[in-house]
C-alpha cells in the first residue's frame, strides 16, 4: 500500500482552466502538506493542515485553495491556471506539527502540472 498517494500523476491543461489534485495518506498522520517544486527543482511549502485545520498558509495566490475533508485527505484546487503554475506538486505528511522527535516528512510521488 502506498503511504501517501496523489492523483493524478500528470496533468496537462490550458491556461484559464480549473484543476484539482487529490492526496490521501494511510499512515495515521495528523498533519498534511502541499509543497511546490519548480523547474529548477526548488521546493517551497504552500499549505499545511493539522487534523483538518489550516496551520500554514504561505504567500500563495488565492487561486490556490486547499481543502481537507478529514485528516487523511488533503486536496488542492487551482483556479484560472497560469503558465507559471507549471510545476510538480508534492503532498506530504508528518505524525504531528513539532515537538520532540524527528517528525519526518513522508512525500507522495508528486503530480506534474503542465499549463499550456
Amino acid at each position: 500500500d502506498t503511504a501517501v498517494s496523489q492523483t493524478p500523476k500528470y496533468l496537462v491543461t490550458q491556461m484559464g482552466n480549473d484543476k484539482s489534485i487529490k492526496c490521501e495518506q494511510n499512515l495515521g498522520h495528523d498533519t498534511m502538506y502541499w509543497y511546490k517544486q519548480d523547474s529548477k527543482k526548488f521546493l517551497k511549502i504552500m499549505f499545511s493542515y493539522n487534523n483538518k485545520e489550516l496551520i500554514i498558509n504561505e504567500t500563495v495566490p488565492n487561486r490556490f485553495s486547499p481543502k481537507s475533508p478529514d485528516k487523511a485527505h488533503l486536496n488542492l484546487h487551482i483556479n484560472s491556471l497560469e503558465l507559471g503554475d507549471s510545476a510538480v506538486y508534492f503532498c506530504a505528511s508528518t505524525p504531528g506539527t513539532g515537538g520532540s522527535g524527528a517528525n519526518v516528512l513522508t512525500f507522495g510521488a508528486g503530480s506534474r502540472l503542465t499549463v499550456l
Partner: protein
Amino acid sequence: ELKVEQNPLFLSMQEGKNYTIYCNYSTTSDRLYWYRQDPGKSLESLFVLLSNGAVKQEGRLMASLDTKARLSTLHITAAVHDLSATYFCASPPVGNTGKLIFGQGTTLQVKP
C-alpha cells in the same frame, strides 16, 4: 527569515572518489534533514540530525550537524553510480518542524 544554501549545486565525480556537500542555514534551527530525489521521483528521507554534533551514517553516506556554525555536511565515501541523484538539505524554523525550508539541491552525477 530562515534561508538554507547548499554547495555545490552540481557535482560530477568518478566512482571511488570521496566528496562533501555543504549545507548552511541562516538562523537558529534545532534540526536538519537530508533527502534524496531520483530523477522524476519523490523525495526520500535519508537522515535526520536532531542535535549539535549529531552524526548519522548509512552505507557510503555520512551526515553531520554543527548548530553553532549552522552547517551540515553530507560526506560521500567511495562513490558508486547508484548514488547519482539530487540531494536536498532542509531545516525548519524552531518549533515548526513541518515547515521545511529546503536548500537548492545538489545534483550528484557519479561516472563509472
